[in-house]
């Protein structure tokens, strides 16, 4: 039975790397993406649509191009990479590179959903909160976040699924080092290339189950009645 293949060293390492990196990526996406989504969803300012386009670019960009872009920026001889190297930081082919690749590709899934959620909040509620003595920070945490929570969770789930499935950008920028940067999709490709079809199949089945579970969760979140 091919399920036994999941006990192989390669599979266990890949599962571990995938879980760790995707959870950290998700945290980065939520922490960075929520304020951005809030600004894009509730404020009108010049240059807003340019910023929206910039944030949505990874949605349509081939992941391999995203990987090349990250490499050109943070690679050994990249624009920022060369500078980082002088202070002893090398990003490519590390655990951090995996997170950067995943976050870059999965961020728009969260920002789109979350900013739509913030945009749908009745502006009167935010105004009332201010006149009741709450500053913008308290209004954000007590009114905006709870009212957008469905969109925030749905966006987080979708972007987590996207981060878990990330392949192209990770392969180019982080490589496929077992136990460090080799995530499940990379391990599947690796095993398939090495003609170990059973192992590839077993890990693929696992990913199908994960993805289906996340999608089902999103459905439940978005359907759950409001107040």
């Amino acid at each position, binding site marked *: 039975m091919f399920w036994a293949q999941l006990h192989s060293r390669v599979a266990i390492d890949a599962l571990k790397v995938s879980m760790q990196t995707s959870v950290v990526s998700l945290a980065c996406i939520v922490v960075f993406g929520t304020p951005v989504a809030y600004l894009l969803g509730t404020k009108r300012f010049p240059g807003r649509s340019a910023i929206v386009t910039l944030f949505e670019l990874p949605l349509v960009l081939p992941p391999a191009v995203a990987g090349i872009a990250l490499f050109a920026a943070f690679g050994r001889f990249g624009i920022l990479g060369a500078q980082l190297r002088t202070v002893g930081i090398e990003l490519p082919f590390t655990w951090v590179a995996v997170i950067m690749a995943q976050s870059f590709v999965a961020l728009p899934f969260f920002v789109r959903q979350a900013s739509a959620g913030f945009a749908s909040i009745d502006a*009167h*509620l935010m105004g*009332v909160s*201010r*006149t*009741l*003595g*709450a500053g913008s920070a308290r209004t954000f945490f007590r009114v905006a976040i*709870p009212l957008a929570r469905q969109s925030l969770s749905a966006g987080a789930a979708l972007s987590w699924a996207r981060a878990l499935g990330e392949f192209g950008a990770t392969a180019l920028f982080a490589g496929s080092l077992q136990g460090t940067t080799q995530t499940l999709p990379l391990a599947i490709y690796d095993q398939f290339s090495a003609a170990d079809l059973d192992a590839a199949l077993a890990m693929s089945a696992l990913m199908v189950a994960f993805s289906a579970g996340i999608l089902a969760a999103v459905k439940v979140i978005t359907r759950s009645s409001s*107040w």
Partner: protein
Amino acid sequence: MDAPTDKKLSVKVRHRLGRIELSADFEVNGGITALIGPSGAGKTSVLQTIAGLLKPDWGYIATESRVLLDTERSINLQPEERRVGMLFQDGALFPHMSVARNVAYGLHPRPRSHRERDARVADLLKRFRIEGLASAKPSRISGGERQRVALARAVATSPEILLLDEPLSALDSVTKGHVSAELSQWLEELGLPSILVSHDFADVVGLADHVAIIEDGHLVQTGSKNDVLRRPASAFAAAFAGINFFPGTAEARGHHTEVRSPDGVVMVSTDTLTGSVGAVIHPWDVSLSLHKPESSAMNLLHGPVLQLSEVGSIVRVTVGSTPPIVAEITAESVERLSLALNRMVYASWKAAATRLVAQDGMV
């Protein structure tokens, strides 16, 4: 209980609003001022400017004791520092919080213990007769109850000014009468300078002491309610003044309400409101006939035609009955009835067309 204040509020605003230039100067000396105008006239922007939710190009807003905004001196208090209570048409209650937590929302920043805060919330719930709803979610309560919760929530923060944005327009006409009567009672009791905004004169005429008419960003008329009704200064004000408005005393009588005007004339309404009221009858709800009508209309006045003025295909007919009433009928009807000045006519309208609004202090 909050000490009633009798402070005045000065408002001067200039602001570019899309195609129109908002320009308004006015003062509120206690009491209730209705800011009335067509949609897009800039009424809501004035309220938002006072609340601090909109920063105008130029402006000066001050109470007797504090300057809230002075663009020339770069003073611009944040909304949370202005002590301005705001009410919206649907109450704008936080849907994710219970009624009690909505009321408690503004009590957070002041240094007080949990027990003190709970006691204050309990007081407010009781005062506004919503203690039974404390744990209810806003989506489960009625429109009138939502307004009471919104008012309790605003009052909790001891505001110096109350701003009401279309407080009645989300309600059906039956509920409207009740909520309007209640609101007028609360506002009087609170004694705060209040500004309420509406596009419907009939909605707020019963609540307000003073009226300001705003059109295309400009204040075209300010004054006491009676002055504006008697001497409308613009087409918009005239259209509103063109409604029939009779003060009187209402009393329940069977399925209907009877309103006795000071002249002793009795009008019948299907609205359920008692005490001091204003009866509003739209001219287009009034029919004219030469003979006593046998229709189901329960209200009837008799008098000579005093004035005929054509407005497009509609003719406004002023009948010199007691009290005088204005009807709007088609030009064909005028011809069919061969209406002419001094011709005696019957004016009739249905009980459902007599809308009652709460009144206080005006006779």
